[in-house]
Structures are given as C-alpha cells and as structure tokens.
C-alpha cells in the first residue's frame, strides 16, 4: 500500500489523526499498523542495524503519539511521521559515532574490547540481497550522511523532492542538488566496485 493512496475502504490518515487527537487510541493503533513497515525501512536504511532500528522505531512512535496534538496538517501525516523518524535516526547515529570513538579510545587504554554489532548484523541480512544490492549497500555506506539520507528517501522510499524538503527542513533545490551529487558519487563508487571485481 502506498503512503499517498491508501485503500479507499480504509479511513484516510487525516480522519484517523483527527480521531486520535480526539482521544480514540484505536485510531492511532491503525496509523501504527499502516506505517510500521515503512518507518522501519526508513530508519533501517539510516542506522543499518536491526536491534537499534527497533529501538528508534518505538521511540518514533511514542514521540509521534505524545506530540499528535501538535500536528496541524500543514504537511501530510506520513511526512510529519518520517520527519520524526529521520531526526531520531540521525541523532542516534551521531550519538553512536561519539560512543564508538569513546569505545575505541577506551580500548586503546585496554579497558574493554569493541564488538562491532553493525558488522555482525550485516552478515545476517546479506543472505536475502542480490549481488547488486550488496554492492549498492557498500557504495551507499561511503556517501555522507546528508547524501545517504536523500537517496534513502527519494530512491528507496519513493518520496517526492517537496516531501523530502519538508522532512529535512530544506528547500526543493537543496534536495535536488544533494541528490544529483549523491547519484554522481554512487555511480563512481559502483564503477570502482565493478573494476575491483574484474581485477
């Protein structure tokens, strides 16, 4: 089911949000069921770790529920929800980066060992991917945080430039420019991977 065209027999996002804002908890549950997979995918493409994705997913849902009264309908509900998810995920990876740097520092001092769960997790999910998708994931991981996020929202999640602009809090032009640069980079990385395979 696409975010922009729900089943006509089902209530629209706006109707469900209105009911949830009126105190009907079942209405919010229906929104959770509607968006759980897509939210998981958005978060996972940023965090790349299932356990952490799960935590951020629940944080996102709780935050959305607690702040539902603040949703005025200026943008689509899914845009608003994705914005919370993306912000939470980006905050999470920034925090993880800091913690990892601290862990490496601690390890140098011989305090404890690092267990890179991200790598362990990577092995588990790779089985279901095509060879090209594996290469894409390697190439995507080389992109900067900003570029990876626009590729995630545009190419993977299928959102429009305007929606991405609203989610990231930047203009359409900025989204297009980041996307252009990200595609260029991605193409170069893929060519490098291909060359590496040949040699």
């Amino acid at each position, binding site marked *: 089911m696409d975010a922009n065209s729900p089943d006509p027999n089902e209530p629209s996002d706006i109707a469900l949000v209105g009911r949830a804002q009126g105190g009907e908890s079942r209405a919010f549950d229906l929104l959770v069921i509607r968006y759980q997979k897509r939210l998981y995918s958005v978060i996972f493409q940023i965090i790349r770790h299932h356990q952490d994705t799960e935590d951020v997913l*629940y944080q996102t849902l709780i935050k959305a529920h607690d702040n539902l009264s603040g949703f005025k309908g200026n943008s689509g509900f899914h845009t608003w929800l994705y914005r919370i998810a993306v912000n939470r995920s980006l905050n999470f990876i920034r925090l993880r980066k800091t913690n990892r740097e601290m862990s490496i520092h601690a390890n140098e001092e011989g305090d404890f060992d690092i267990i890179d769960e991200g790598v362990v997790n990577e092995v588990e999910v790779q089985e279901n991917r095509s060879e090209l*998708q594996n290469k894409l994931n390697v190439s995507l991981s080389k992109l900067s945080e900003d570029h990876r996020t626009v590729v995630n929202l545009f190419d993977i999640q299928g959102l429009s430039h305007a929606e991405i602009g609203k989610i990231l809090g930047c203009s359409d032009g900025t989204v297009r420019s980041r996307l252009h640069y990200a595609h260029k980079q991605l193409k170069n990385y893929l060519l490098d991977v291909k060359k590496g395979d040949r040699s």
Partner: protein
Amino acid sequence: MTMENIDSVQKALSGLRDEVPSDLYFSGVLAEFHSRQRNQRLVPQSFTTRLMESVKDLWFFNPARLVQGSAFALILLFFTLNGLHESWSSNSAVLVNWYQGESLRLEKSTLPEQFLTSNGIDQLGSSALVRPVELAALSLGEMGSDRTQYVMNTTPASYDSVVAF
C-alpha cells in the same frame, strides 16, 4: 554506465525498501509499542531528562546548526562592539574639540598663518592639515589639562628660524 545499468540500479535501490523483517515480526509491533509506552509512563523522569527530551528535536540542538548559530552570534557581537567603540571615539573627539574650542578660536585669530606650518608643529606629529582644533586633539595627552600651556609650549616664534616676523 549504460541506461540499462541505470535502470537496474534504480530497481535495486527501490528493492532495498523491502529490507525489513517478516510479517510475523510486525504483528508484535503494536503490542510492544503499548508495552514500552506504559513502561515509559511508569518510570519517573527527572526534570533534566524531561527538559532534554522536549528540546532534543529543536533545530538549534543540531550540532552543525549550533556551530553556525554561535559563529553568527560572535560576528554580530564583534560588529556591535566595534560600532560602539567607533561611536565612543568620535564622541570623545567632539568632546575634546568642544572643550578646547573657545581658546583655540582665539589662538587661530591671533596667530599668523605661517605658525601653522612651523617646525614646532611638526614636532607635535602633523605637518599637513594643522588646524588648531585638530592639534588640540592630538596634543591633549602630552600637554595635560592646562589649555594655555599648549599655545605657550610651542616653539616660541622668536627662536624659530622658519617663522620670520
């Protein structure tokens, strides 16, 4: 990279959307969400934790924007202070001119024009535009507070070889 390749890359990219666990996993999400929501409500949060939670998503808590904002504030502060300093300096000059004004006007009217380009005035640090009012401002620090001393302290006309009477 050919068009065919680009198509396959785009297909592969959109295929990454399906990198999610099985439907069985999602059947438990709602229950887990309710459970975590209940637990969060049960745990009493400190004031600091609640404050941090409420401001966590604000734009200025983004580290990059925080740095940009701080830099902008510093630049603004620099220009404000600089502007205030210049304004204070020009006010001081006006005050000095006002303070010296009366006697200097008298001096100008009593001194010959040549006096203004004499060696005595060169010693005060200016040989070009040497109106008495500017000299007063230049020599205020050296001459002290006695206004008449300025005129008396310049090279006496009788000793000055340049100035001829």
